[in-house]
């Protein structure tokens, strides 16, 4: 069963990748563009922090660490979940009807039909940034740290993915979601690049309980960097990322299903 789905995924995703590689120049330019824009953003962050040295007691290296961590989760999510980015076109063009009659779960089919390799360039840049930041912050590499980091990245990817899924699902009611999903994800990603402690309580609560991206970077970083900065939240939050990811997965999937149940075709 799992093997069958795995094979199917490779088949569908592979077809998409091959079609994308038809335009090699454009593909290359896109990768290049993403890398440049990532480096530019990091350069800006650098220019800023060289001038000010610290943000709320976080050093340059620690902020880059947060940035790298958030960016890693973001790029993996982008590789696997690109299809949700402009999910509304499935509804506007009526393509969703075609998906619904296929003998696989609709969400699986939608995700499998596109795997965006251009974002591998972003992921590689993030890995580089993260490795450098890891080095600068003088965290000691142990098996535990490695496992914890890995779990954090996987949970972070899932949390971001579920936010994307929820915002894409909204289109099942409103028909159009335009750049909303993209905007939401970019905004939350931007928010995770800085220590959550710089925000007022309301924004902190928002980023902890409603759009729980603080679990992508900030809380796990408390453990990795030994910051001990919890701002009145339970200390166990530093280990909570996988739990949050699981809860979010359930919530978003239920939301998706309820969206599908009430879906009416646009008829176009």
């Amino acid at each position, binding site marked *: 069963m799992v093997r069958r789905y795995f094979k199917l995924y490779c088949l569908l995703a592979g077809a998409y990748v091959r079609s994308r590689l038809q335009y090699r120049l*454009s593909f290359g330019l896109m990768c290049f*563009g993403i890398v*440049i824009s990532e480096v530019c953003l990091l350069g*800006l962050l650098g220019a800023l922090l*060289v*001038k000010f040295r610290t943000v*709320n007691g976080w050093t340059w290296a620690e902020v880059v660490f947060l940035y790298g961590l958030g960016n890693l989760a973001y790029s993996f999510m982008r590789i696997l979940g690109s299809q949700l980015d402009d999910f509304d076109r499935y509804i506007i063009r009526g393509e969703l009807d075609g998906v619904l009659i296929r003998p696989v779960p609709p969400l699986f089919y939608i995700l499998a039909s596109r795997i965006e390799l251009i974002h591998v360039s972003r992921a590689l840049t993030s890995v580089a940034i993260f490795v450098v930041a890891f080095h600068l912050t003088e965290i000691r590499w142990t098996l535990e740290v490695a496992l914890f980091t890995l779990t954090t990245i996987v949970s972070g990817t899932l949390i971001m993915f579920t936010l994307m899924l929820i915002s894409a699902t909204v289109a099942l009611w409103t028909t159009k979601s*335009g750049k909303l999903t993209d*905007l939401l994800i970019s*905004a939350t990603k931007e928010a995770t690049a800085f220590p959550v402690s710089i925000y007022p309580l309301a924004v902190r609560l928002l980023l902890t309980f409603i759009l729980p991206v603080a679990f992508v970077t900030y809380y796990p970083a408390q453990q990795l960097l030994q910051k001990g900065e919890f701002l009145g939240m339970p200390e166990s939050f530093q280990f909570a990322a996988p739990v949050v990811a699981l809860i979010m997965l359930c919530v978003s999937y239920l939301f998706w299903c309820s969206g599908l149940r009430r879906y009416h075709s646009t008829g176009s």
Partner: protein
Amino acid sequence: MMKKYLIFTVKAFQRTLTYRFELWMELVINVLFMLVYVYLWKALYTGQTSVEGYDLNKILTYIVVSQTLLTFTFTLRVARIIEEKVRTGEVVTDLMKPIDFQLMTLATAAGTSSHTALFNMLPKFLLFYGTFGLLLPPSLLTLLLFITSVVLGYIILFSLEFIIGIFAFWLVEIRGIYALVIWGLSMLFSGYFLPLEFYPTFLAKIGEVLPFRAIIYFPTAIYTGQLMGESLVTAMLIQLAWVAALVGLGRLAYRAAFRKLVIQGG
């Protein structure tokens, strides 16, 4: 003469009204974006009074104005729209019309963008202005110059996107160039994230020969009173020069594109 182009503007303005929910959500998320930056700068300025001639009030004003202007960058979809028209072949119907393609595209974009300015940028700005006690421009004249500078910056942004869009005639897929120019270079050199005074010298030097600072930095620095007197005049002259150069380049590009255009029957 201008009346027919105005119709495009009005129609585009009305079209944006169709999906209200989307517009509201967009506003909410934009506010979240701006909050991130405002609080980042507040945190950076704890224990500092003035950096590079910017005190806390001035820097917050700078950030909010520049972030507000940045809205044009991510709501303008000129390159995407042209690409789509080329791919679907719809561009043919535009070519058959007795109108100028570049002007028509600008008129349409202006319609969408004036809607954005009125219902997204202005409320967003007023919200932050009220909440964080931001500065107003030093004088009424500065305000008028600021608005003029915003319009010039807008035309520069439009022209860049227009040229990128025209690339679709050769490349079919332009997301690469778009990401490179708009999300890479423009983000780095437009000064949306921090004022150019904060840049390391070599980076600032590179920025001076590129058009991007004329999109956001110039109008924002005029608003905050950072550019005054002679430097303000120079800035606006640079903007005018870029407008002339890029609009001209856009015309050349689309003439070249239309000459090589071969349409498949459909």
